[in-house]
């Protein structure tokens, strides 16, 4: 079923009816989301790694300016699912994907999608802090430079704003020219968040962002997530149930490539509907 047919049936993507205008807009400015309209919608998503099916018929709507947590045992497909939104799975050989994945009403797997621009709009933070082996300043300026911002003044503004957003400005403002690798693990991860924010994304994907960090740094990053959700749609993959409850508004429980349950976090953790969810979150899995 293609998009237009689907749209004729039901307005699944929450788009307005003048989709013609929207298409012409897209041609003009490529992927540029409207500030109020970058919710994520996934329909019938199947994903294969060669012969292995990693995602089975996943359907999900993710609201903007909310934190959504993906939980589930290792290998359940939650990280894979996270990576479909910035098409990081493209980098894996033998990875095939079917279904419709839309962000802000646009098919991100359409032929005319510029993956670079998609990734600019859908930032990502990884499990292990991965600051580039360059200065703090250059790390933050990396994405703006990629997208053609070369003027020193402009970059200075972006660097300061991004570091402030990530709560790292006070700690680093006097050592911007120093190597980013000299920062502590928690600082490095906040630097990676700042680096992603510098690209001015609309969506922020976080793949177990605190699993390599100590409890204090974890707490700082969790607070940061709560602050950032006012401006960004955030999806976080986590193995830590407490983290899911502390930071997220909605939670999806994945098992063997399927979404078992997706609901408000309070509902999932106080009265899960599926026995498998209950078993997992209470630690009685298996």
């Amino acid at each position: 079923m293609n998009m237009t047919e689907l749209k004729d049936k039901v307005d699944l993507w929450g788009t307005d009816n003048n989709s013609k205008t929207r298409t012409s807009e897209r041609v003009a400015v490529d992927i540029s989301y409207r500030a109020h309209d970058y919710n994520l919608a996934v329909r019938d998503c199947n994903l294969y790694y060669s012969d292995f099916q990693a995602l089975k018929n996943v359907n999900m709507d993710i609201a903007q300016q909310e934190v959504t947590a993906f939980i589930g045992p290792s290998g359940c497909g939650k990280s894979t699912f996270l990576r479909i939104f910035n098409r990081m799975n493209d980098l894996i050989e033998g990875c095939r994907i079917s279904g419709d994945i839309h962000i802000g009403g646009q098919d991100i797997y359409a032929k005319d999608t510029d993956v670079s621009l998609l990734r600019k709009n859908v930032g990502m933070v990884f499990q292990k802090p991965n600051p580039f082996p360059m200065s703090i300043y250059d790390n933050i300026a990396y994405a703006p430079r990629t997208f053609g911002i070369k003027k020193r003044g402009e970059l200075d503004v972006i660097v300061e704003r991004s570091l402030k957003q990530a709560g790292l400005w006070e700690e680093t403002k006097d050592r911007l020219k120093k190597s980013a690798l000299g920062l502590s693990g928690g600082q490095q991860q906040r630097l990676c968040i700042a680096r992603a924010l510098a690209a001015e994304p609309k969506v922020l994907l976080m793949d177990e962002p605190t699993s390599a960090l100590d409890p204090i740094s974890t707490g700082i990053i969790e607070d940061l997530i709560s602050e950032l959700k006012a401006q960004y749609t955030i999806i976080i993959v986590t193995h830590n149930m407490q983290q899911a409850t502390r930071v997220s508004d909605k939670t999806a429980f994945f098992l063997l490539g399927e979404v078992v349950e997706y609901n408000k976090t309070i509902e999932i953790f106080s009265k899960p509907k599926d026995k498998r969810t209950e078993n997992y979150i209470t630690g009685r899995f298996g």
Partner: protein
Amino acid sequence: MDIKKSNRKRHLDTLLTATTWTFAVLTLTALMFIVGHILINGVPHLTPSLFEMRWTTENVSMMPSILSTAMMVVITLCLVVPLGMFTSIYLVEYAKKGSRYVKVIRQATEILAGIPSIVYGLFGSLFFVNFMGLGLSLIAGALTLSIMVLPLVIRTTEEALKSVSDGFREGAFALGSGKLRVVFRIVLPSAVPGILAGVILATGRIVGETAALIFTAGTAPNIPQNLYGSVRTLAVHMWSLSGEAFHTNEAYATAVVLLLIVLIINTVAAAIAKALNSGRIK
């Protein structure tokens, strides 16, 4: 709980320790002997006349050879580094993992690495010197050496590229970089120390090479006028001198200089390797 070491185990321990010590000492002694031998026989004959700019049958100066060696190194590296680097970038960053093509290239480099240098000399003599008509020349020698050290450069560069954490690549891609930008702004800068170490190892090979050069660059003892002139590098110079009964002392003196150059190159390589390791994140 009996946690005492048995007698048998204790004796075996002593034996093994003694063996390792013995061999370590033997190796060290051999090295000391060679270095000592060269220094004792060479240093007294390091006369100023050996460093005159022009070679004559009287002074048998090694200065022209030192300069020729430098030229040979620079030209060979200019040829081999881009070739080797781009090959490795292709192999590591672009080629599909496990493709047949990559396997063939890997196999070929392995084989090239295992060929004795005299064979390269013979090939260079037949192909560059005769077939291409370059004659015994600086350029023919450099081309031959390029092929000889190419596997080394490819392997070290490959290792250097592979050792760059995938996290950097992922991070850069996730920020919207294209492949080219990822390779040239993120991967390559991080791999520079490793690549440099490889280049220095290659330099060492070039400086020490004789067999491949005798048939391709010849043995003309003075600085060549152009790329097509015959040259003798320091190693070849030493080989020539030792072939002539009258100049054994000068040969030793040359050996001292050669030893010194190789030592410097190795020290620099070690320093870079150390910098590489300390600069990387855990």
